[in-house]
């Protein structure tokens, strides 16, 4: 990403936020996945009284603790960066966006913070039952935290339940449940949390496989693999369902993102889904006549089916979305980008006129301006767009990231199935190829997660809030050099801490669980 950015304030602010978010997402998935796995193991200990499961759970908790600390650190920065680097955004939508963050703090963070202390330090201080409850409440707290921040993120992708107030110059919430229960939010929550579960399962199977490769801690490893494989398989199958739901929501709410995900420039009826393909690097604009692909292999009609649930449905491409004129799935004629930009400019001017009229106490003019603003507010953000080409996200990054995520998702299912079967047939301990494959799958699970977020976030550019506010109008007014300084400061800090985390993790893994 760094290679493609220039030195402008907006790009550096985006880069800093992306840096923090990507580092944060290196640690959170393992917290979400490993947290559930260790809770399952402690539950088995609670039910059976078998010390083996206590030691097993404690070992995974040790790794959980190492990972958890740095996730908390990056999360803190992320929350405050909404204010430090996106101050205009914070006012324009803070009335809606701030609420999930506050609820996250009150309901989720405190639960997590309180019970994680009991989980780590309470083994000999509280009852078995209270300790087990604390372990579950820790991961429930972490998952609730994910819920609220993902509700906030989903709202940015599909703003709902709010209206613009020209007197306060911001959007204001009028329907909390429309924000909290939007289909985009629900799909995003389950899809993201399940991806964390997959990372946790892959991590447990991979580390356990390393012990088998080293011929040590055999029982610990085989039992951990069983739990990991079942858990991972359930999660990865559910991910197909939530992934389909997420893609459908993208098609409905963010058609430009879908077009970028597919490298689809010219839409049409009965469109196919690109299974594999290589984009043509000579295609630099939606306006040139270059072929988008050097080669591509498609599943016929599948894109139309996934996007509209009809095999022959119309799916717009990038050119169609820019030029408009096609019939939307609601039966209306789509506006062109130029028309939307014009409406956005009208809305912004109407807001200026409204404020002047109110100041001048001219009620008639204020009413007229207000009507004009309301009529055009759906396109408010387009008023800040200078060139229709700015509405097209980075196609290459979005297209390839989507494929990396999906292909790896399919591979994880296969791995979990094989791991489970080999485990059931007591063949895992001897299958060195499978042990190596499992070990090397650990980085792939992280890559899949990062790729997913790149699709979600790069694919929605240039919007901070879909159609309402572009990133260019969301930013804080700072010297670019200030943001560059903090960018490199955080890059250095996060990288050093990541290396330290990996170093500690490797040492702890090498030391092993010492379970007999």
């Amino acid at each position, binding site marked *: 990403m760094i290679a493609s950015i220039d030195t402008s304030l907006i790009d550096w602010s985006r880069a800093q936020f992306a840096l923090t978010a990507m580092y944060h997402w290196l640690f959170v998935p393992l917290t979400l996945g490993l947290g559930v796995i260790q809770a399952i193991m402690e539950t088995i200990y609670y039910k059976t009284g078998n010390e083996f499961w206590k030691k097993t759970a404690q070992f995974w908790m040790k790794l959980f603790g190492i990972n958890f600390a740095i996730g908390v650190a990056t999360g803190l920065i992320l*929350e405050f960066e*909404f204010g430090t680097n996106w101050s205009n955004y914070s006012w324009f939508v803070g009335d809606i966006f701030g*609420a999930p963050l506050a609820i996250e703090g009150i309901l989720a963070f405190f639960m997590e913070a*309180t019970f994680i202390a*009991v989980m780590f330090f309470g083994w000999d201080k509280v009852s078995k039952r209270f300790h087990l409850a604390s372990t579950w409440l820790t991961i429930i707290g972490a998952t609730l935290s994910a819920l609220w921040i993902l509700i906030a993120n989903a709202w940015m992708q599909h703003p709902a339940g709010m209206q613009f107030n020209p007197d306060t*110059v911001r959007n204001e919430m009028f329907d909390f449940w429309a924000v909290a229960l939007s289909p985009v939010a629900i799909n995003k929550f389950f899809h993201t949390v399940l991806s964390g579960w997959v990372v946790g399962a892959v991590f447990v199977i991979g580390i356990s496989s390393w012990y088998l490769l080293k011929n040590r801690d055999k029982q610990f490893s085989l039992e951990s693999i069983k739990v990991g494989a079942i858990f991972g398989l359930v999660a990865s199958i559910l991910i197909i369902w939530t992934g389909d739901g997420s893609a459908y929501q993208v098609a409905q709410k963010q058609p430009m993102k879908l077009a970028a995900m597919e490298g689809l420039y010219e839409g049409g009826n009965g469109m196919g889904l690109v299974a594999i393909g290589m984009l043509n690097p000579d295609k630099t604009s939606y306006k040139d006549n270059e072929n988008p692909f050097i080669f591509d292999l498609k599943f016929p009609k599948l894109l139309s089916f996934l996007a509209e649930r009809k095999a022959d449905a119309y799916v717009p491409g990038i050119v169609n979305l820019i030029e408009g004129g096609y019939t939307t799935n609601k039966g209306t004629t789509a506006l062109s980008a130029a028309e939307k930009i014009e409406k956005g400019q009208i809305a912004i001017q109407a807001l200026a006129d409204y*404020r002047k009229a109110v100041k001048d106490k001219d009620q008639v003019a204020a009413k007229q301006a207000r009507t004009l603003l309301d009529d055009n507010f759906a396109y408010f953000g387009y008023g800040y767009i200078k060139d229709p080409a700015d509405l097209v996200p980075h196609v290459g990054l979005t297209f390839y990231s989507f494929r990396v995520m999906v292909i790896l998702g399919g591979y994880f299912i296969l791995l979990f199935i094989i791991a489970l079967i080999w485990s059931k047939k007591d063949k895992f301990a001897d299958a060195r190829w499978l042990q190596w494959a499992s070990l090397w799958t650990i980085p792939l699970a992280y890559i899949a997660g990062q790729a997913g977020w790149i699709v979600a976030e790069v694919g929605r550019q240039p919007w901070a809030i879909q159609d309402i506010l572009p990133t260019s109008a969301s930013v804080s007014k700072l010297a670019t050099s200030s943001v560059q300084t*903090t960018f490199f400061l955080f890059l250095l800090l996060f990288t050093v801490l990541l290396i330290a985390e990996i*170093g500690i993790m490797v040492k702890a893994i090498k030391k092993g669980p010492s379970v007999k």
Partner: protein
Amino acid sequence: MDSTYILLQHYWWFLVSLLGALLVFLLFVQGGQSLLFTIGKTELQQKMLLNSTGRKWEFTFTTLVTFGGAFFASFPLFYSTSFGGAYWVWMLILACFVLQAVSYEYQSKKGNLLGKKTYQVFLLLNGILGPILLGTAVGTFFNGAEFIVNKGQLTDVAMPVISTWANPWHGLEAAFVFWNVCLGLAVFFLARIQALLYFINNIDDAEITVRCRKHLVIETALFLVFFLTFLVHLLFADGFAVNPETKEVFMQPYKYFTNLIEMPAVTVILLVGVVGVLYGIIRTILPGTWKKGIWYCGTGTVLTVLALLLCAGWNNTAYYPSIADLQSSLTIENSCSSPFTLKVMSYVSILVPFVLAYIFYAWRALDLRKINEKEMESDKGHTY
């Protein structure tokens, strides 16, 4: 304005102030870190100190995050203006809290790249800079900051940012205002006092207890110098008042003193708080084995800070005054969320007592057995 809306604004200023007050109490964790090498003379003693505050650092951290989240939800214009404007102050605060988050867990682990001492120095830095910077930042609630807010700016497509900072220092200039730093140092020494009281309560070690009691006298003297200087200045200073009719912000002589006179309940909270702090300290200093000072001093801290923050925002006062453009000053009325959002958030806040109850229960369960050398030397369980 709708009276329910006014009530909600005051209610949310109260909640944000309460979170701020709880945060100052929980800064005992930072205070403890700053005393790591002063009180802990041997490696084992340092380990006991680290494990004492280390089991509570998450609460301080979470309260800071929730304080930020609650401010965002209830007074988004503050979030937008202060965080986006006083960029360097907030970035410094964030950076030193990031160091804390990893240092407890990493400092004693093998393979930690930087070595044990480095992480302990990180904790020391967080312990010193965290309270001072937070206190200095809060000082601007009374002494003002240099920003301009113009909501109409959103219609300027070329430069639509509504909140701008009026100098290139982006918050660093607050550190050159004596009264801000005075409050920062008062918070710092208070955090150290609370840490000493917490160690006395939480660690079962005669040597540490004696050393803590001894240091308590020095820290208390320094705290009183800075706190009383700030308090006396505040009571005599001109304050940033708001005309309830015209909404115009103006300078009013003795504004904060007037606030205390006009809000007797807040004055009572302040007095009870100060008495609580002093009682907790003095009774601990007096000869004997009394170890409950932290609870009196902690409760007193919460009440004192709560009263000061209520004084900053209630009774027609601008809680985040602008000295660059007086009319840009933020009040609980012009910076708050919509009535709907405040109402929704108020329903959520009903759960706060439940949250406090389970924190109390879990805290008590863990602290029933005091930290001692035996526990630290045992390889059973998780220690830092």
